[in-house]
């Protein structure tokens, strides 16, 4: 742990991550502008001291809109990962633990999912379900469930035949309790790393879907929704897309940097 904090890059990433999270959940601490207040006189004003990110096509302060939009994006990414992780882990663990036909059946379905680019899959699902926060969460979680299932299955496989699991079986403990009390605690740290890694990509997916026009729709857009709205103006007013995109990139970068460093430190071979 000490080695983690020795690296300045990790510290910076942690700081960025905390800052963005705080911004997302306490937006009024960071801006005094109302994200919905339109101002015709200041339409698409470039970044200045008054509006550090500039203004959008309705003269609304872009920084305020980004800060208020962050929460939605974080919530979308977080809850879709919670759902995907819960269902995916349940499927992954049981599939590895019980094996047999059930395992083969599950793996076939997962393979089918994997023969498809995740972004296009997300696009399909969200386009058919329609936009809106809940639908977006549902769509992103469907895309990520097979990823969790496959990863968690690979974590569980080596544990199926270890002595303490065999011992628990031989004294007649029920499968459910073996899974809950013997297998799950052992793979929990690895599941958490997988969760964080996928959280950052889910955040990216949300923004990209927004760019393609499937974000949380106005008037209370997520970051993705903001980017989608700004799209039509970005040639004349680049800031409407560049700054929200920058915030997305910084958020994802800081999470990736943290997980990457943790993995590097945890890997004894390197």
């Amino acid at each position: 742990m000490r080695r983690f904090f020795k690296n300045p890059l990790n510290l910076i990433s942690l700081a960025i991550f905390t800052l963005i999270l705080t911004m997302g959940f306490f937006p009024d601490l960071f801006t005094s502008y109302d994200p919905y207040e339109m101002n015709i006189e200041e339409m698409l004003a470039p970044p200045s001291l008054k509006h550090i990110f500039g203004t959008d096509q309705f003269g609304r302060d872009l920084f305020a809109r980004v800060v208020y939009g962050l929460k939605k994006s974080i919530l979308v990414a977080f809850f879709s990962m919670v759902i995907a992780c819960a269902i995916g882990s349940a499927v992954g663990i049981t599939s590895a633990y019980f094996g047999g036909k059930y395992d083969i059946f599950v793996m076939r379905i997962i393979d089918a999912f994997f023969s498809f680019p995740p972004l296009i899959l997300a696009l399909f699902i969200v386009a058919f379900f329609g936009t809106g926060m809940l639908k977006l969460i549902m769509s992103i979680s469907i895309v990520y469930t097979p990823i969790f299932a496959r990863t968690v299955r690979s974590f569980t496989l080596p544990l199926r035949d270890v002595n303490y699991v065999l011992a628990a079986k031989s004294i007649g403990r029920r499968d459910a309790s073996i899974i809950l009390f013997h297998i799950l605690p052992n793979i929990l740290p690895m599941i958490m790393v997988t969760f964080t890694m996928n959280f950052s990509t889910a955040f990216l997916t949300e923004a990209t879907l927004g760019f393609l026009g499937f974000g949380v729709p106005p008037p209370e857009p997520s970051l993705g929704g903001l980017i989608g709205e700004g799209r039509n103006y970005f040639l004349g007013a680049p800031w409407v897309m560049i700054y929200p995109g920058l915030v997305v990139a910084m958020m994802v970068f800081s999470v990736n940097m943290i997980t990457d460093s943790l993995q590097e430190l945890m890997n004894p071979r390197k």
Partner: protein
Amino acid sequence: MISYIIRRLILAIPTVILVTLFTFIMIHLVPGDVVDLMTGTQNYLTQEQLRELYRSLGLDKPLMIQYFSWIYNLLKMDMGISLRTGEKVLKMILERIPVTFELAVFSITIAVLIGIPLGMLSGVRRGSKVDIIARIFGLAGLSAPTFWVGAILIVLVSRAFPKFKIFGYTPFFENPISNLSSILLPSLTLGLLISSQVMRITRASVVEILAQEFIRVARSKGLPEKMVVWKHVFRNSAIPVLTTAGIQFGYLLGGTVVIENIFSIPGIGRLVFEAVSKRDYPTVLGSVLFITATIVILNIIVDVIYTFVDPRVRLE
């Protein structure tokens, strides 16, 4: 080898069927079909006319029958007709393949040219300044949204060279020079992003290989470091890079949706996007089939190439 390829292709059939079936069911589960979309909110059609419309589009039959007739027609090389443009789906897909193919080839070339040397350098000089910069570059590429990098490039180029035609696409045989200039920025965007992943994989495998016995042997017998790196590290680290090529291709296809969208390039990615947004079912199904088949076939090709690079690997 040939029997291996045939076996893999046969094994892939259930996957492809599952994917198309899944898409098919999903399309029909969702409320609002193409007829609703065609008629809009102001629906002046009588019940009789509506029924006729459904019948002419083949949407009145049970779901399973519709799916089987789609498969049946597919075997006759008929993917149906786009509900949006009235063109044949197969023709639309075939027209757009070369565009996306060109984009893919250029992007991957850029990605490999940047990613592999950078990954080697960073892996060999682990912990150095080069390594730190390369690692940041790698993570940044992983974190930056595709559309964002594209937007930045567009803004920069349009400011620096106001005359440069950024959007649109010119076919190669129409005008090779403007073809290349129209594909330059899109492939640079995608290539940069993929290069970061190529770099990360190369670095990881270089680090792994440098720790192995035969490297220590090579060094201890007095082989110059340059030879160690070229003869032993380079060749061995190519394997994991190749293995992930299949996965990268999936990422690439996802990336083309965004890139073709932002640069207005008429490729497969844009076709998919438009079909999905307009609920053009036959085109959606056709492109789903095309994408899945491409990825499946590419994975097989990667596995075959694998045996050439690494003689230890045998196809079973």
